[in-house]
């Protein structure tokens, strides 16, 4: 067992959640759940962190922030989507102002659903994420780690509106003009 999975440092970012999942993430650090038992520390600095916990769905305003934080983290790194909004967009999925789950912005390794996600589920997700972290560390040491590319930038206009995306409409218009 390498040291990498014995000291996963966390950074958590609240994309646009109701703060319920955010509070549960912090609850993990309290004496009740005490994640420091596993060497986990909440750093608040992407350059020190190994695990990115994101709560809430991604939207036009914060997609750049999520991608920025992800980009500043050093390999090996793991992303965990905490809560149903971060996983799929949750009850805000069909809203005009959200883009959907965090995987619309950055590559996600582990999904932890729940509304709000329970601390046990978060701890479970982090422990699952450690397996991915170890694989990435081994790949980095062997020089075979492929940096994951960010998903194609989606916009709210890409979303399905009345059975047809706005982008398709725009495309059809330009084609008709040409």
């Amino acid at each position, binding site marked *: 067992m*390498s*040291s*990498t999975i*014995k*000291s996963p440092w966390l950074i958590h970012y609240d994309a646009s959640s109701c703060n319920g999942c955010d509070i549960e993430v912090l609850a993990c*650090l309290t*004496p009740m759940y*005490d994640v*420091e*038992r*596993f*060497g986990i*520390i*909440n*750093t*608040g*600095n992407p*350059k*020190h962190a*190994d695990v990115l916990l994101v709560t809430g769905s991604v939207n036009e305003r914060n997609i750049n922030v999520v991608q920025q934080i992800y980009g500043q983290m*050093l*390999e*090996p790194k793991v992303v965990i989507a905490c809560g149903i909004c971060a996983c799929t967009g949750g009850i805000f999925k069909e809203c005009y102002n959200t883009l959907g789950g965090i995987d619309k912005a950055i590559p996600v390794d582990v999904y932890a659903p729940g509304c709000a996600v329970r601390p046990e589920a978060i701890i479970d997700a982090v422990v699952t994420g450690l397996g991915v972290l170890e694989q990435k*560390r081994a790949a*980095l*040491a062997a020089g075979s780690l492929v940096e994951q590319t960010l998903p194609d930038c989606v916009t709210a206009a890409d979303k399905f509106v009345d059975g047809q995306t706005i982008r398709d409409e725009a495309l059809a218009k330009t084609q008709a003009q040409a």
Partner: protein
Amino acid sequence: MTLLSFALSLVGFGILAPVLGCLLAGIDRKVTARMQGRVGPPLLQPYYDVRKLLAKEDVSVNSYQGFYVGISLVLAILSGVFFFAGGNFLLVIFVLTLSSLFFIIAAFSTRSPYAEIGAEREIMQVMSYEPMVILITVTFYLVLGSFDTFAVLEQSEPLLLSLPLVFFGLLFILTIKLRKSPFDLSYSHHAHQELVKGISTEMSGRTLAKVEIMHWYENILFLGWVALFLVWGSWWAIPAVIGGVILVYFLEILIDNNFARVKWQAMLASSWAVALVCTVLNIALLVWIP
């Protein structure tokens, strides 16, 4: 300080200090967790942390930050080697100050606003503890007539008996030096929150590992300073020093867990006041009560 004692200290301090410092950091986290009603991480957690940091991707903001931190680490080790070789106490302090200056330069070199705030606060910390450190050497010379650290071994009683107030002053600035609350303005350990991560914001991977190892060396050196006040020329000094040093470190952990961070103005004013009052009173005691 002879060449032989320097060589012995180089090997002894160079190898033993990180081992002891790592264990000390592990015990610190364990005791802190117990004080907060938690189980806490394994004893070797600081070692795992550094191993992990060394395995991270080697990326840096610029090419010289890691170099500055490396120089800072080498100077911190050198300072400890001089101290435990019985060298000049003034030299120990100046080399250590140079080490902390390089650490500050490393943070400034990144041009990151968060690292710069951390570096500014580190400067405030250096300004706060430096007068007391210089006054310790002054009173040290007044009592012993020498700046050599091994001069305490020729004493028939520990330095603590003639310099009790100066020892208190040392304990006061030790909280700054060990980066403990209420004076952990620029950088703190554990999961304390900062402005991002203070002076170490832009340091990652191997550079951060160097910083951690530097703290291990420094903490052992600072406990050496405490031992300087407790040791005298007798074999009985050994249990007294070990007991005293453990007690002091436990006290620091207790203070760390019971105080909130203060503003830099309060830190500067209180540490200068303590330095001035303690030293002047102690010198007066030395003069009038021989």
